């Protein structure tokens, strides 16, 4: 049936809201907990849980390699995975600008359902608000997630867990999501054959855990990119990190955008690329496992953890020069000339 556009009445709690829930959310997120249709989902668990939330706003809604729906699932699932927690249950709240085409919302919900299949996580509760035109930009999505820790809490990865002698690994070539979004925004008309790295990484984390790879720290390099992760870790663990620039995987296209505009791939957001700190002795095992996954095919060791100036992240060039890798500051602005 042709549904036209989402109107304010779809958020009003009446017939139209019911129609939206039945024909979109129940249909695609189909699971028993959701369909109990109570005020809250009820389930039993045991052991330590991880709990996280994230809100998603992105322009454009659909980009190469993903969309805001896929992002909303992968983002929250990945936050759980980074704590070595198996993603179980998600909530999902939509804030929709009136006039959003029904078809657009349906595509997003379909995309979310597809992404959920990668981990078996379920959307078990949700909410929909429709707001007047201009109050939000098309659609915002919030998801929260609960996951089951796959390790005892004392051995779970933590930002405080880096140790001198660890190596730093990135799971994929860096900066793709940030570069794609930059390239697709209307102001920058570049033709680049890159896709966002947006994906749920739990399968790779699960494989590392199954193989018993000691994971001292894990973090997905979302906003602030790899630069932010490494700086936060160096501070939290009171260590320094020495990154060998030549070993950092960066695709030609991402590097090209950086060269054109004066950015650095370290500062670009990723949505399916994570950073690991593991003992040097476990590095080759970790890489071998990561390379089995197509979303980790370019995983590489990029540096080492040093017992040196706490909080400092150093970039070492192939010609032996060194500089500090700082936390990104402010909005990313292109250079002038």
């Amino acid at each position: 049936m042709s549904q036209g556009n989402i109107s304010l009445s779809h958020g009003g709690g009446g017939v139209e809201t019911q129609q939206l829930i039945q024909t979109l959310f129940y249909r695609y997120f189909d699971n028993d907990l959701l369909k109990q249709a109570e005020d809250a989902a009820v389930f039993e668990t045991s052991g330590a849980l991880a709990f996280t939330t994230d809100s998603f706003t992105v322009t454009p809604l659909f980009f190469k390699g993903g969309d805001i729906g896929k992002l909303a699932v992968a983002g929250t699932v990945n936050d759980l995975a980074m704590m070595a927690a198996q993603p179980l249950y998600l909530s999902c709240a939509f804030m929709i600008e009136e006039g959003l085409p029904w078809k657009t919302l349906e595509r997003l919900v379909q995309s979310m359902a597809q992404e959920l299949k990668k981990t078996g996580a379920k959307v078990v509760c949700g909410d929909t608000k429709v707001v007047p035109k201009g109050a939000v930009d098309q659609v915002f999505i919030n998801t929260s997630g609960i996951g089951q820790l796959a390790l005892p809490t004392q051995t779970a990865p933590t930002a405080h867990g880096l140790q001198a002698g660890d190596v730093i690994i990135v799971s994929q070539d860096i900066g793709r999501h940030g570069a794609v979004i930059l390239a697709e925004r209307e102001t920058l008309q570049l033709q680049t054959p890159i896709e966002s790295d947006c994906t749920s990484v739990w399968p790779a984390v699960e494989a590392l855990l199954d193989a018993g790879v000691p994971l001292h720290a894990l973090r997905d390099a979302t906003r602030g990119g790899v630069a932010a992760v490494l700086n936060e870790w160096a501070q939290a663990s009171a260590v320094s990190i020495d990154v060998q620039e030549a070993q950092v995987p960066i695709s030609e296209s991402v590097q090209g955008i950086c060269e054109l505009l004066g950015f650095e791939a370290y500062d670009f957001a990723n949505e399916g690329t994570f950073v690991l700190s593991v003992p040097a002795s476990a590095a080759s095992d970790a890489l071998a496992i990561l390379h089995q996954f197509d979303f980790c095919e370019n995983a590489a060791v990029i540096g080492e953890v040093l017992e040196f100036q706490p909080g400092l992240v150093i970039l070492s060039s192939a010609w032996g020069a060194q500089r500090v890798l700082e936390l990104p500051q402010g909005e990313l602005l292109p250079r002038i000339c």
Partner: protein
Amino acid sequence: MRQTEDHALALQQLYEGFRDPKTLQALAEQITERAQYLSRPLRIMEACGGHTHTVMKYGLKSLLPELIEFIHGPGCPVCIMPKERIDQAIALAQMENTILLTLGDMIRVPGSKTSLAKVSAQGHDVRALYTPMDAIQIAQQHPDKQVVFFAIGFETTTPMTAVVLQQAQQLGLTNLFFHINHVLVPPAVSALLEDDDCRIEALIGPSHVSVIAGAKIYQPLVDSYGLPIVVSGFEPVDVMQSLLMIVEQVLANQPRLQIQYSRAVNWEGNVKAQQLMEQFLQPRATFRWRGLGDIPFSALQLRPEFAQWDAEQVFAHHLSNEALDDHKMCICGDILRGIAQPKDCAVFGRGCDPQRPLGSCMVSSEGACHAYYRYANVPKIPGRSQGAVK
């Protein structure tokens, strides 16, 4: 960005050879070897912030002998913008029914009270452009608004502003205005050299300026001041090669103008671009440079016949011209003249940092203090030799 056709040039090819570790190391060794014959330290000014960035980002100083000293010049269009003109941009952005367009870091730079970023957060429409040509489209999309392009940059970016004005004229756009802040490299370097305290002994000229204006713009500086000048590219190998060329000139005691960046720079430059600039723009009697003060004929303004597009005239009643000085602790003027280094400044990194800059050199990522703040003073990793190719 690599093209599919075999013959097409990929972006990567434009830089990858120019960051080659072995080439850099070989150049470093050659410079070190030749610099032994220098009788005293050689102070080289890299006029352009882009070169400062290359020197610092790629850690070139750690590859060079101590006798080679850098003086970080006034070539950052954001850094040299005096506060009163930043205030003018802010005043324009705060006008009703207005979209203010500008480039890059200009958004972040604080004026006397606030910044464009802050007035944008307050609801005024301020946009950073990726290319000045977008100004045309924005003006067309918003015929009910006045769109002001706050144009900045050296000779490199000036022709683009002229093209935008040419198009605005051809399209009959009446809602697009230009606030021109284009500045010129040679008058600024001349002003520095005229200073009795000046310690500049050689100059690295920016290649992108000369792609437009030609290498010829520097010849008067060689003739008047006996200054060795090399027009250089921006990749690390370019800069290292240029340094070697300068050292050779000094050792031979034969100061002259050389083009290192022969890939795209010639003597005359882009004559069409120069004609376009001259068609729309003319030298300004004087322009106040942040940190350097008033320098005659060092900047451009729209020609009188384009007054209807000139934001400085159309919106004159919104704009104050009262000169605003930097904080009295700031020594940016001395740094630009080569008399002082960022580390000599009492407020460097303490009262003055990239988030709260007191002076021009800390303002933009291309400023000398900003580059030092970001890249210098990297503690040496124990057991690791700097400057060694791994």
